[in-house]
């Protein structure tokens, strides 16, 4: 069958829209990796909890999911800080005594098991609190269609999601580049020991990083909830893709993750179009393998 140009355009637009979401989820994961040096396998669960909190807020207040999204994101961010203080900090302190400030925590089995355990715990908690049946958060915006000449049509909800994703990523980038806290985060990411020497409280930086990372995941969960569904295992469905994005982009590199998000979103859709949709998932992993083969540190790895 001959592929028409309009089809390619539609797939490119849809791919970029999904890429923005991959980016926003991947960025949170990569920040934790870059700054705190741990792989958070429970990252997807913060995305899930964000969506459920938005659902609860919408059913209690009757508001729109897009309006309650920031609230839900902040709530999840605070949960993130709590987990950091209660569970991660004792391990950091213990390890710092042995290895010093630049210890690579992600190599520590306790962190891997701890975050995997958290992931299982959160999924089961969601099952108990909200039940197994998938929920949908209706928003009037999903009903509004934006028709583009040539037979293309997108819902306003999807367009808003894309705009929110891009705006959030831009804001995050500015925050990291311009503000004092942002600079401190980058300093901690580059060299924790040196950061501590110049008077940066790295534990506080870890709190802030954890807040940003989990809040970003939750925000993604909230703004996607009206388009997709909310269910306990929704985090597990995105976390594998988030890791692909992070590894492809360069572990710990924020810009790399954003670029990799768009790259994989686009590649999946074009791969689906030309090779067949059964290979969509495969395309994402092939991109990752090719990048790792040519540049093992990832697209922008090495640079911070």
């Amino acid at each position, binding site marked *: *069958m001959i592929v028409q140009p309009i089809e390619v355009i539609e797939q490119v637009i849809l791919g970029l829209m999904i890429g923005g979401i991959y980016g926003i989820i991947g960025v949170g994961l990569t920040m934790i990796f870059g700054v705190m040096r741990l792989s958070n396998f429970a990252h997807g669960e913060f995305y899930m909890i964000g969506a459920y909190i938005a659902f609860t807020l919408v059913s209690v207040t009757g508001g729109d999911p897009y309006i309650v999204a920031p609230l839900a994101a902040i709530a999840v961010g605070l949960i993130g800080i709590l987990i950091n203080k209660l569970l991660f900090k004792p391990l950091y302190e213990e390890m710092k005594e042995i290895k010093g400030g630049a210890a690579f925590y992600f190599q520590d089995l306790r962190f891997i098991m701890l975050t995997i355990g958290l992931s299982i715990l959160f999924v089961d908690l969601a099952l108990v609190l909200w039940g197994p049946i998938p929920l949908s958060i209706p928003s009037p915006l999903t009903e509004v269609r934006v028709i583009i000449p040539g037979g293309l049509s997108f819902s306003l909800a999807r367009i808003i999601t894309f705009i929110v994703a891009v705006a959030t990523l831009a804001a995050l980038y500015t925050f990291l580049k311009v503000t004092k806290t942002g600079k401190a985060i980058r300093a901690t990411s580059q060299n924790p020991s040196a950061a501590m020497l110049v008077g940066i409280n790295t534990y506080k930086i870890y709190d802030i990083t954890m807040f940003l990372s989990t809040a970003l995941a939750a925000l993604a969960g909230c703004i996607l909830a009206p388009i997709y*569904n909310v269910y306990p295992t929704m985090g597990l469905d995105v976390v594998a893709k988030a890791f692909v994005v992070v590894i492809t982009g360069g572990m710990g590199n924020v810009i790399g993750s954003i670029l990799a998000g768009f790259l994989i979103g686009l590649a999946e859709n074009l791969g689906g179009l030309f090779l067949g*949709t059964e290979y969509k998932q495969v395309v994402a992993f092939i991109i990752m393998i090719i990048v790792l083969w040519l540049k093992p540190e990832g697209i922008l790895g090495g640079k911070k």
Partner: protein
Amino acid sequence: MALGKGTLIGVVVLIVVVIAAAYLVLAPTGPAAGGTVKVGLIAPLTGGLAEHGLDMKQAAILAVDEINEQGGILGKKIELVIEDTECNPTKATAAVQKLLTQENVYAVFGEYCSTVTLAVQPSIMEAKRLLFVPVSVATKITEQGYKYTFRTCANQWMQTTQNADWVVEHLKPKTAAMLGINDDYGREGLKIWGERVKSKGVKIVAEEYFDKGTTDFTSQLSKIKAANPDVIFVVANIRDAANILKQAHEIGLYKQFVMLGGVTSDEFLKLAGDDALGLVHVSYFEPTTKRKVAREFVEKFKKRWGRFPAMYAAGVYDAFLAFKLGVEKAGTWDVDKVADAIRSLKFEGAQGLNIYFDENGQAQTKVLLVQVQKVDGELKRVILYPPEDKQGEYIPPEKFKGG
């Protein structure tokens, strides 16, 4: 010490031999003596398919309580042991081992996922226990010549061909597109449906797949939209199906969607909302049915659990009915005689007036074809086929556009 060690080994060997011998001699061929018979239910109670597992669990509890209230079977009370599988063959195998060895169940009811049923079926058959399959539709399950396997719902081949035949006869499409989950269930469904409609002169213009865990289907739907088919056949579970319909309308794809029985539930209608309007799909059971046995089942289920049963509940309920009637007809717990008795049953269940099993243990049933329509402002499944159950007329998708 050498002697001591030898004696020790001797004692251990003796103990093992005695236990093994005792197990062989005492191993119960039927249920153990006493007032109860244990049966097991395996279902996905956690994980992505937990909503279906809940239906199965609630129907099983309802059926067992009812049997016990009526005095049990042949004077024995039934005790239900429920195991979670998460639709994971490894977990399910362990659960079934526990049911067979520790719990010594007489029969196993389940599972939802065909892959799980196929994985645990051999060990249940080897242990000579009955397996009632109320939900899994993989055709293969009842085509392996197992004597103790019974399926109480129509299989994949039966429902898919009946669906395809209705589509060709009533919608008269020239072209069709297919979209399915990229596993054995989806692949088998698309193959059977595709071959059936092709043999009747319909051209397949697109065949797309999505992987488990996919939440965004726009790239598949965009390809289907470009192929411009008259009808789109989809094999997906509730969650995916709701997303597919929502996203199809998002990108401006308003065509006749047809699906299999997997989407028959009120949760699906709630999830998909108005995007479900116009969808035609297979249903094994409708709680709106007027038939007495079915109506009673619906009322009891509603009273006990405060919601309407989905069709999985009906399949499980009928499985327990077949189990009870079979044992009573055989008049003994001897598993071979019970299996023969079940094969000679003809009974009215929640799912049909005349349920009987063929040689393979497959229940011969006719599926319903329903369309989602708005009745008094509410989304309802309206039965289009067969004529004896018909509740309303087919409405083409153009009528729903934008609604």
